[in-house]
């Protein structure tokens, strides 16, 4: 009888040891795969995402046709994006392009978290000069946009693409604004090859499904002359478009996400194991 009890106890201990082993090994395997250091900015962070982009009246600007010529766009993110320490970096992530790919000056504003904590997820973007009527524009937010935690970037929720919000201003297009004139001067490569509207559609904005995520490379290839139109508020954006280093960072983040999935699966296995142990125990007691 005693021998039977000892056998059962040993079996139970072995099972527990196995579970403990899983508990330690699975996360470690995930940790090893991702190459993440604890506390490093390559740790597992929740992705930063754009919640909405709206006009003053609260209507979404995404794919809207009658946008005022001097719109104040309220961009709502799901994390703190106004952190003082990263603001100089973050404000370089916002770019406004007209339909010919010419970059326009953009005035960005924020309310600092130390002044009003509830506004820490909002950035307001406004063109410095009035937009042309009846013209299509693209507001591009680069994937490098960084949240206060120092690890969550927009690239994590947009597949390293950033967010492109397309809209069209109200009114009739002036006759002098023929696309081809400016097109030859400042148009990015993707526009020049007529690929502007064929970019793969991703929907990083949660409330809309029609936001296109353009290939950031296309923007990186834009004519340097574009930068002449920048004001001090938004410095040239070429340096903030994804580079090779950005791609490496994205790959690391992908690893992190894969690790996260592994850990979730591991957690599931542990949970099932736990239920199995409890069921076994109960059966043995009844037996």
């Amino acid at each position, binding site marked *: 009888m005693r021998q039977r009890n000892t056998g059962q106890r040993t079996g139970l201990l072995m099972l527990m040891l196995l579970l403990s082993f899983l508990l330690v090994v699975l996360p*470690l395997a995930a940790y090893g795969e991702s190459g993440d250091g604890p506390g490093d900015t390559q*740790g597992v962070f929740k992705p930063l995402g754009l919640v909405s982009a709206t006009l003053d009246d609260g209507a979404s600007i995404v794919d809207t046709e009658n946008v005022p010529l001097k719109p104040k766009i309220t961009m709502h993110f799901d994390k703190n994006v106004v952190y003082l320490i990263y603001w100089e970096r973050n404000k370089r992530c916002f770019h406004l392009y007209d339909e010919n790919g010419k970059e326009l000056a953009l005035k960005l504003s924020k309310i600092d*978290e*130390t002044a009003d*904590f509830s506004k820490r997820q909002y950035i307001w973007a406004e063109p410095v000069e009035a937009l042309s009527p009846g013209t299509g524009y693209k507001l591009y937010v680069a994937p490098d946009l960084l949240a206060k935690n120092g690890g969550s970037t927009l690239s994590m929720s947009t597949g390293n693409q950033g967010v492109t919000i397309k809209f069209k201003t109200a009114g009739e297009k002036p006759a002098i604004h023929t696309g081809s004139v400016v097109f030859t001067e400042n148009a990015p490569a993707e526009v020049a090859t007529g690929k502007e509207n064929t970019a793969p559609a991703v929907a990083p904005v949660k409330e809309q499904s029609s936001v296109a995520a353009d290939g950031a490379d296309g923007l990186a290839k834009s004519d340097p002359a574009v930068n002449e139109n920048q004001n001090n508020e938004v410095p040239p954006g070429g340096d903030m478009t994804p580079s090779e280093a950005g791609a490496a960072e994205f790959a690391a983040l992908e690893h992190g996400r894969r690790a996260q999935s592994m850990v*979730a699966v591991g*957690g599931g296995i*542990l949970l099932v194991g736990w239920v199995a142990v409890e069921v076994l*125990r109960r059966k043995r007691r009844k037996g």
Partner: protein
Amino acid sequence: MKDMEEEKTAADLENPADNFIFHIGLADVIRLTMFGTLISVSRFVFQLPVGIPGHTSVYWMGLLILGKGLIPKFGAGAIMGIVSGILAVVFGLGKEGPLLVFKCIVPGVLLDILAILFLQKLESIWVGIIIGALISWSKLLASIALGVILDIPMVFLAMGFGYATLLHVIFGAAGGVLATVLIKRLKPRLASSWQS
């Protein structure tokens, strides 16, 4: 007296699993380890992009109180905190690095103390609210302490402290309420099979 000690030692030798750590049996320690794991896993699975400080307290504090309510032994909270802390560090959750363990242990230890002060009545909704809110707030305080250690400017730690406290208290209390409901339902069912 000596005889009693010898008897106890003999009993321990005979069944080491019943007195594993903090006078908690091995089976209970394993169960608490599972709760600790669930806390860390839940932080992965429920990655709600709500952007409200302290919202993780709903399931974090909920699971802590649930574990403590089902295994009402001193040290249960600490064990869950240690396990969830170690896993959180290994997972790389957050930017605090190894110091993250501290943030996870503090609510667990406080839970052990508060459970004694509230006579282990964790199935009471009011007790759940109070304990959930207080341990959630202790998490916030631990975060601020870590911020000081990690040289985060004081201005970012002090500003919005009231708002953050209010939200942590609300979410912690919500977690406490959920836990008490679950304790009430689960405890009678597990009472017979969970005796180690």
